[in-house]
């Protein structure tokens, strides 16, 4: 067993025992924080597909998290409303609203990524960074001005989505559901990067001109990856909406895009698992520092600088050192 597998096994055991520990210490907030880490981990890992494998520096990933969250919030509102179309009312009554809400949230984010990606991918380098940012900010201001759904104040959900077998209103169930989503994503994504599609993409990210010279229509592959990453971020958004039972337009702001990027770099770009670890370190630091001072950012900044300086490839590769980058 390699050190990486050992590390992942250890992480899986710790994560599955965490709810028991939270009950033991009588600290339910711990569980809520852990769920948030898993969800941010999912969003960061989806961004890593773009940054670490596709070499597409998107500074607008928050847009897809936000669209997933708003899709979940808006659907929630309407599924609970009276005078609903009979087909939808049936779904709402049958206590499985999540089976509609979650897939539709992913679909909405994927579609947005498909359209925005098709436009952004006409550019490269600095222009790509700026145009992804511009689209995300456009959507941010769109949702701020969307008075019907809370506008600036955000949108409250009345309870969480309903799923068969699990009760998401129970925080322990919700935590395990987030863990399940994250692990499923990581398994699928690590298959993806070593598939034919993944090989072509990694090559395209490495040297696009060479890939074209070999006969690859690189634009189609990049757009497909952009859509997949957007959809996955949408799932994270829908989970986030359920987690806090609230959707804020702040989710679409560029600060979240920046935070996700920091999580990817901190944990290890191009490692998929690293960004999850990065999300945990980032959010725990934020919580920890927040307890001592409200100027926590002043301490967080230097810590991040040190981490980036001394762990060039990220914290996870440092911990399991000796492993190659795309292992």
């Amino acid at each position, binding site marked *: 067993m390699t050190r990486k597998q050992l590390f992942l096994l250890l992480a899986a055991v710790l994560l599955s025992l965490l709810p028991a520990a939270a009950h033991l210490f009588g600290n339910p907030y711990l569980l809520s924080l852990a769920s948030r880490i898993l969800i941010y981990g999912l969003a960061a890992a989806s961004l890593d597909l773009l940054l670490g494998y596709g070499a597409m520096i998107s500074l607008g990933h928050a847009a897809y998290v936000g669209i997933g969250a708003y899709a979940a919030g808006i659907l929630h509102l309407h599924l609970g409303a009276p005078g609903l179309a009979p087909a939808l009312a049936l779904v709402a009554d049958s206590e499985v609203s999540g089976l509609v809400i979650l897939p539709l949230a992913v679909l909405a984010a994927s579609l947005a990524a498909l359209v925005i990606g098709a436009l952004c991918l006409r550019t490269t380098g600095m222009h790509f960074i700026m145009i992804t940012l511009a689209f995300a900010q456009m959507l941010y201001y769109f949702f701020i001005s969307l008075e019907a759904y809370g506008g600036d104040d955000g949108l409250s959900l009345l309870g969480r989505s309903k799923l068969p077998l699990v009760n998401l209103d129970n925080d322990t169930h919700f935590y395990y559901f987030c863990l399940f989503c994250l692990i499923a994503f990581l398994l699928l994504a690590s298959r993806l990067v070593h*598939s034919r599609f993944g*090989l072509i993409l*990694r090559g395209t990210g490495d040297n696009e001109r060479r*890939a074209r010279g*070999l006969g*690859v229509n690189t634009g189609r592959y990049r757009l497909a990856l952009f859509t997949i990453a957007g959809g996955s971020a949408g799932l994270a958004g829908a989970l986030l909406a359920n987690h806090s039972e609230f959707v804020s337009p702040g989710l679409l702001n560029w600060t979240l895009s920046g935070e996700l990027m920091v999580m990817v770099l901190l944990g290890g770009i191009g490692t998929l698992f690293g960004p999850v670890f990065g999300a945990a370190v980032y959010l725990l630091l934020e919580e920890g520092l927040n307890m001592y001072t409200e100027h926590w950012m002043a301490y967080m900044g230097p810590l991040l600088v040190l981490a980036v300086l001394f762990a060039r490839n990220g914290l996870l590769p440092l911990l399991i050192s000796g492993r190659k*980058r795309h292992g």
Partner: protein
Amino acid sequence: MAEALLDVTGLNKSFGALLATNDLSLSVRQGEVHALIGPNGAGKTTLVNQLSGDLIADSGRVVFRGQDITRLPAHHRARLGIARSFQITHIFENLTVAENLGLALLAGHGGNFHFFRHWRRAPRLTERLEEALTRFDLLQHRDQPAASLSHGEKRQLEVGMALVVDPQLLILDEPMAGLGPGGTVELTRIIRRLKGQLTILLVEHDMDVVFSLADRITVLVYGHDIATGTPAEIRGNALVRQAYLGEEG
């Protein structure tokens, strides 16, 4: 006379005021090694880029196997059978040697939207990959990242990636650049072995290599073809001597 595989007529390309390609015509026959020489700045690489599709000509025509490809994008041309190597080594540095060759083998097919199965298990790939690793003497480096290869091995890999798909026309843009004497001999041997199997357009500075390998030579000066002929004819051409070979005494 053998049939022309690639026909270039009246090609022009300018960058601002600079006329990099100036009414250039060139015909590469099926099966020959056709060398392209010229002083620095003669527009050799600009021409190669217009043949591979990395640049699009301002005017003129490029015809490959009877098909007008003047405005076709690079990946279409690759699928028609034009392979190129680059002046600066262009390989996928972060991928392993096997992944580099595997990608070259898979890239020519459109249907790579397979998301789950490992790429090595693509149909009919294993044998071709093993064969390519053996043929280009890269078997012992297969799982190494390409970035860790020596300069000569990188060249070998690059030429290998261009050749695995059995292209119709292979464009080699200064393949000997940066190679030591040993590497040059080795690569010359590889190219000589390819002679007759496929058509090669060779852009090269090393005159020994050019005169020993080429069936015909075209000389470019300021983006225009001033002469085309056999090595003996080019050696005897007064215009060429004056414009180019004269430099070397």
